[in-house]
């Protein structure tokens, strides 16, 4: 029999290893200082995220956006979409003990994350299926496959970049280390 795999949730991963992460980290902490609200960093069990970054404000952010634009151009071509444009980009700081609850990025077509400072224990990203399969598939499976899983976990690693559909629900596990987890997230749309 012939099989065709319709409507998959695609996760693109790559590394961006030519950015000055120290400079970006300084910039992010500068933002934290400027925005000591929203909520303030260090407040138990709440992640901090910045307001939208102004791309021209920092050269490394400009470089990151340039790299992302190229990736998104390739992705759109691959999946038969017109090129999309960046419409939001922001920084995240997850102090120890903090996690992000399940969410999607309405109304982005593509979303993603770049890790500035993230290693084992600082909180992985977990994508969850919402196509009905999570209610029908048996608990006991023979071996994990992309078809029969109810969630999939991607490691948060410095320099790694993940891009995924904006509707693909995801969460971040608790930062169990004693260091902040820093990342930059973004949304692309038509």
């Amino acid at each position: 029999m012939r099989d065709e795999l319709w409507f998959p949730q695609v996760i693109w991963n790559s590394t961006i290893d030519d950015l000055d992460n120290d400079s970006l980290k300084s910039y992010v902490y500068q933002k934290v200082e400027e925005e000591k609200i929203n909520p303030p960093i260090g407040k138990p069990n709440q992640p901090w995220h910045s307001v939208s970054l102004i791309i021209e404000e920092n050269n490394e952010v400009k470089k990151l956006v340039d790299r992302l634009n190229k990736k998104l151009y390739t992705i759109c071509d691959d999946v038969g979409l017109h090129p999309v444009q960046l419409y939001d980009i922001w920084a995240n700081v997850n102090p120890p003990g903090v996690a992000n609850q399940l969410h999607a990025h309405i109304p982005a077509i593509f979303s993603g994350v770049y890790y500035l400072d993230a290693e084992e224990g600082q909180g992985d990203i977990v994508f969850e299926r919402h196509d009905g399969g999570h209610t029908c598939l048996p608990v006991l499976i023979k071996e994990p496959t992309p078809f029969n899983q109810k969630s999939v976990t991607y490691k948060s690693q410095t320099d790694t970049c993940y891009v995924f559909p904006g509707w693909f629900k995801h969460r971040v596990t608790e930062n169990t280390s004693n260091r902040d987890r820093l990342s930059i997230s973004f949304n692309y749309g038509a």
Partner: protein
Amino acid sequence: MPLHNELWFPSPIWSGKFFNVDNDELKKFAYEQKERDTGVSISNVGGWQSKPIGKGLCSAIDTLVNNLDREFNEISKQVGLPQLQVYNIWININPKGAVNLTHDHMGAIMSGAYYVQAEQGNGNIKFERPDDARYYLPTPVKPEENTPTYFNTQVCEYASLTNAVYLFPAWLPHRVEQNIIDKDRISVSFNYGIY
């Protein structure tokens, strides 16, 4: 590192043809059942749907189930599931004007349809994407280039053709288009799962 992609939670549709099912016998059995059974009303509008057909009542259906058992055995291995068994199997007769509204087969793991008598105009089966992408994806998608892909399309369509068989995840919403010709569309649907 170049972009690497991974495809998660796809909705596979398996397609093929069975040539060892006696369609004439099955057709005769279908109309006999229709005479004596008022049937059930689920997704069918204007069409007749039988109650579940038991084993041993129609040798053509028994042959069909043997074929399906073999195919689902392979599919289970492919997708990493335990062996699947038939839950229920039933006959559909859609005369001119009949349709099946969008539905899924919740409770089963895999479902499918085999076409006993079907041709162009009898009503194709259309599968709708089961996620939230319809609220996000732009329309139209490069209409001038007409490049629907597995990722960007909202619906995929499979032709109803005699001897064709389509197998799909039970949770995948689907519908049958209106039969616009004078000939009945006869199919057998089924659910598979784990006991």
